[in-house]
């Protein structure tokens, strides 16, 4: 029998204990780590490469969705949550396995069974799942980025701009560059449209960072940021800017 290597992530010890207990009749599942927060979870996944994650949604530091964004879609995840209507809707929409606390052995076994069937298949795109789990008209407050085992948290107000680079976005914040696997369009929809503008096919900028807009060629302009960085502004990007700044 193939051993399924599992990690339990929950900030409450008693909650981890329940999952442990429910796994007792399933010798094919081996718990290789227990984590009390999102950082530990990201580290454990990187180091232990488990097959299955029992992941609490509400945790300090990094929540379940952020953990998923950081570990990527290759590990099967069963989410655990007490009450979160938006998260539940996201799980339903994306057909992700989840357990509502408290749960009994019957429900647990059913979730485990489904998760087993899905082992090896990819999870839905994490950022899409996270976006679906946000309350309507709620925007991203911070962006999580992983660099090897290191996790960086960028509060959105400290993001200067984002630049599309193939399947990645380059995020510029406080003089440093971060790479995140996400499309720029996806990032655009997660950010507060009152504070961030897509000025170009490849660029999103933090409105507060723009010092001035200068003409470049006949049809295009450049945005000059406070630190002197110049970013191209397309015609439609300029129209969006003008609309946002009220004809500025």
């Amino acid at each position, binding site marked *: 029998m193939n051993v399924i290597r599992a990690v339990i992530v929950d900030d409450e010890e008693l909650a981890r204990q329940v999952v442990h207990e429910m796994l007792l009749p399933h010798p094919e599942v081996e718990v290789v780590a227990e984590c009390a927060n999102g950082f530990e979870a990201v580290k454990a996944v990187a180091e232990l490469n488990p097959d299955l994650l029992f992941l609490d949604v509400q945790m300090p530091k990094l929540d379940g969705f952020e953990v998923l964004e950081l570990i990527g879609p290759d590990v099967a995840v069963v989410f655990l949550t007490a009450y979160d209507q938006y998260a539940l809707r996201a799980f339903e929409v994306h057909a992700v396995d989840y357990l*509502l606390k408290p749960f009994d052995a019957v429900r647990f076994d059913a979730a485990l069974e489904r998760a087993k069937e899905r082992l090896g298949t990819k999870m839905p795109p994490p950022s899409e799942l996270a976006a679906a789990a946000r309350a309507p008209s709620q925007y991203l407050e911070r962006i999580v980025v992983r660099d090897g085992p290191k996790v960086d948290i960028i509060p959105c107000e400290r993001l200067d701009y984002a630049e599309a680079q193939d399947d990645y976005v380059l995020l510029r914040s406080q003089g440093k560059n971060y790479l995140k696997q996400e499309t720029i369009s996806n990032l655009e929809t997660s950010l507060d449209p009152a504070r961030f503008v897509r000025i170009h096919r490849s660029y999103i900028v933090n409105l507060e960072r723009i010092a001035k807009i200068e003409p470049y060629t006949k049809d295009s302009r450049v945005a000059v940021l406070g630190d002197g960085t110049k970013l191209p502004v397309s015609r439609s990007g300029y129209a969006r800017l003008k609309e946002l700044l009220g004809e500025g």
Partner: protein
Amino acid sequence: MHPILADPRKLALYLAAWIPLVLLLAGVLASTGDFTWIQAGELMVPLGGIYAFVCLSAWYLCRFLPLRTSAIFYLLVTVNAAAGVSSLIWAGAIGWAMASGLGLEPQYLRERPILFGAGFLLFDLAAAFHYALMAFETSRQAQARAMQASILAREAELRALKAQIDPHFLFNSLNSISALTASDPAKAREMCVLLSDFLRSSLKMGDRERIPLGEELALARSFLAIQHIRFGSRLEVEEEVAEGAAGCLVPPLLLQPLVENAVTHGVATRVEGSSIRIAISRAGERVAIRVENTFDKDARRGRGGVGLANVRKRLEVCYGDAASMEVREIGDRFRVDVRFPAEATGVAAQRRPEEEETK
């Protein structure tokens, strides 16, 4: 819209009430000897029917001249003038035309004053009837409004209560109990009791206007005891209650939301846990409550703010400008200060909760 014309059932009732009136008028005409019963009937049934509808117009007059606000003399003159005019048209013109059609013109002209008088009287009666109807409608509407207001108030209360008992807290606590049933049944039972105590007292507090601060503190303590089982050593609580402060009267659910906020934004956001400090002091005529907790500055705000906003609103409603609430972040500490006038510890304050229940 006319209340009688708009409702077919009311209209049918109204017309039915006219049947005896019409018969009476026909009887009066027959008794003069000028008409046979048949002739009187032939004339009066359609004529009376028409007048039944004419009298409905009194409603517009009544609405234009509400009883309460109109000068009584002006009202009497207007209503009687309207009665005179409509009766004149009815008995003088319409009745005459109809009588001529039936070949009863000479008799009719002789008895016309009777019909004129009857028409005048009937119109006045109709006006009185409409005034009564309007008064009835108004009181019914007022009743409905009062009922709706009380339903709304009740709903608001329920909403407030629902907001009070955080579903996260409830389900996570139940999950802890579920975990303990296997590992530590005695502790599981203890937590069941704590949770029940907490829910019972929160439910009971909703409909009281003021409670002793001590009771509020007891609620917060049972809440913290539950959270302590959930979070273990991650949650530390310090308490400092000045003598004599516990007896002061406060609006219910004033302290509890502050403590709840401290937990959800403190210990629940910090890996290393958090300490909560509750300090209650009394300086002369004022009570000061301070709830302080360590928190993670990078944590997202999330569900926060609702509890604090509720407390602020409650303070405003209860004390107006006499109360204040201050929220501050000092380094990694989150501090809420609430100050309000100390209310005399009357009989209510000394009454024990047990007695409250038997009331």
